């Protein structure tokens, strides 16, 4: 037997209590990792390297305001712009609201040039360009609804006052979101009465260095026009959506705080009970020659062992679960990745370690101060 073995034996002495403690820490850390992952996805959306060259241009007043189609040629003339295309949120309803996935009208010739991370075969791309009513659907949506090439998708307009009937002519893989449906903006223009408007402009810069200048130039170009724009990097555009969620960080932070505090109370109470009922043993070990610091160390190690076991189960469980469960499908693409990152796992394990340490400080201190004679009196 070793001191480590002795400590482990003590930690598991009351198996039911140890199991319940480990389970409560594990469950709390599982929740915490889930919340942190959700928060990270919402406040720090994933992005690809390719997005660094992309600029989003929207109406300065609100994203709900449309922009005139005539702006395209002006933007195209800005030095360093490699591509400009309309990107308009169509929305619409497929069967009913439960069958949700993102639908955008784009320029088929430019879309997969701009979104280079979304891989499409040349045949599908050509078909998309040629067929005005054609659409390209992300592989995850294809799988979710068991779509096949050539299938018809009828969408009822909600944001736009027109319905569209589309034919699947291609599919793509890759990118952050593999659930989107893209269709031809010209079809939307015709279906909606050629109003000559678009939702946003999506601009591809020739290189990353050009992006700040292009943003400044576009913003300057339409200043004081009847459709003043806000050009910003794609990343900044994404973050703008996050701000619409309100103070979700505070909300999730508060919930996390409550979880942490509850976890602390549970662990501290367990350790206090576990140590109090062993006071006489601690006194006897002291009589044998164990120093107070040795015993305090054993108590801290015991508490750390329980908390870390819970941490491994909770954080590891969250990591494993969200790898196996298709969260993107379950949330209709709201959380396209939902990855418990190594950083979140490390945070979770750090919390478990801090929890193990702080929850046993009072019992360890009491054990440290316990005199052998007082401890032996507990026997009588």
């Amino acid at each position, binding site marked *: 037997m070793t001191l480590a073995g002795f400590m482990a034996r003590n930690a598991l002495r009351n198996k039911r209590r140890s199991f319940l403690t480990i389970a409560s820490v594990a469950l709390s850390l599982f929740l915490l990792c889930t919340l942190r992952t959700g928060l990270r996805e919402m406040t720090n959306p994933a992005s690809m390297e390719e997005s660094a060259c992309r600029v989003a241009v929207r109406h300065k007043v609100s994203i709900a305001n449309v922009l005139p189609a005539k702006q395209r040629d002006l933007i195209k003339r800005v030095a360093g712009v490699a591509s400009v295309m309309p990107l308009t949120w169509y929305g619409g309803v497929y069967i009913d609201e439960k069958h949700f996935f993102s639908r955008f009208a784009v320029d088929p010739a430019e879309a997969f040039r701009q979104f280079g991370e979304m891989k499409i075969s040349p045949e599908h791309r050509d078909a998309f360009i040629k067929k005005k009513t054609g659409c390209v659907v992300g592989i995850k949506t294809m799988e979710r609804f068991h779509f096949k090439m050539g299938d018809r998708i009828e969408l009822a307009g909600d944001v736009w006052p027109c319905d569209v009937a589309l034919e699947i002519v291609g599919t793509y893989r890759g990118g952050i979101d593999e659930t989107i449906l893209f269709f031809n903006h010209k079809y939307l223009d015709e279906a909606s009465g050629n109003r000559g408007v678009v939702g946003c402009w999506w601009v591809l810069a020739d290189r990353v260095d050009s992006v700040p200048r292009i943003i400044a130039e576009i913003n300057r170009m339409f200043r004081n026009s009847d459709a003043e724009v806000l050009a910003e990097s794609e990343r900044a555009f994404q973050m703008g959506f996050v701000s619409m969620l309100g103070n979700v960080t505070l909300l999730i932070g508060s919930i996390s705080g409550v979880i942490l505090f509850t976890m602390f109370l549970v662990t501290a109470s367990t350790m206090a009970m576990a140590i109090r009922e062993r006071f006489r043993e601690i006194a006897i070990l002291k*009589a*044998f020659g164990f120093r107070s610091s040795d015993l305090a160390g054993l108590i801290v190690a015991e508490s750390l062992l329980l908390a870390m076991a819970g941490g491994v189960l909770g954080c590891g469980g969250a990591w494993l679960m969200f790898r196996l469960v298709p969260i993107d499908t379950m949330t209709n693409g709201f959380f396209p990745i939902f990855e418990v990152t190594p950083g979140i796992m490390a945070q979770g394990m750090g919390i478990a370690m801090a929890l193990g340490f702080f929850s046993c400080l009072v019992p360890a201190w009491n054990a440290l101060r316990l005199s052998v004679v007082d401890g032996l009196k507990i026997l009588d």
Partner: protein
Amino acid sequence: MIDLVELTKLYRQGDIDVTALDRVSLHIDEGEFLALMGPSGSGKSTLLHIMAGIDRPTSGQCLFRGVDVAQLSETALAEWRSRHIGFIFQTFNLIPVMTAAENVELPLLLTRLRASERRERVEFALELVGLKDRLKHLPRQLSGGQEQRVAIARAIVTDPELVVADEPTGNLDAHSAHEVMGLLATLNQTHGKTIVMVTHDPRAAQYGTRQLHLEKGELQHDTAQASPAEAEA
């Protein structure tokens, strides 16, 4: 071996000072088996605790081979106990989740002995108390007498010079008490261990080579006597 010089111990109970030991002076030679007797509250356990280095006197000296144990720091005192003292308690105090062998091995975890050396010592100590066949037994699988014998093995496994026993037969039936006392007498006579034992039981005290009576913290009688083995001879 042990010299107690004018040893006084006062306890404070509320506003009142209670004298547990009143200027007790005593000399114990190596190889003695001392039985400390007296009524409850007479100070015998306090005297035992001070001799074993788990309590400190209010005044006076407790010299162990010339070293005033009461002057040692907490850390030095802990190390001193691990080297020189073996403890036997009334309620055995074995750790319930550990086997007999593991309980006996506990004090050896403080030494630098290798695992194999520790195992040898544990087996030897358990053999000495007649429980080598109970190495893997948990305390709940042993009788009271066997538990106390495991506790004795634990007390002697580090080969201490002084074994202190606080009412070692207090929780045992007559037969087991007789066995345990026989074992302590053997440790004293055959292995030369110095033993200081607190007891209420006059029959247990008969096993000692010397009886000491305390009353109200003062030494009353100090009687040398023949051990049972010597008496039989």
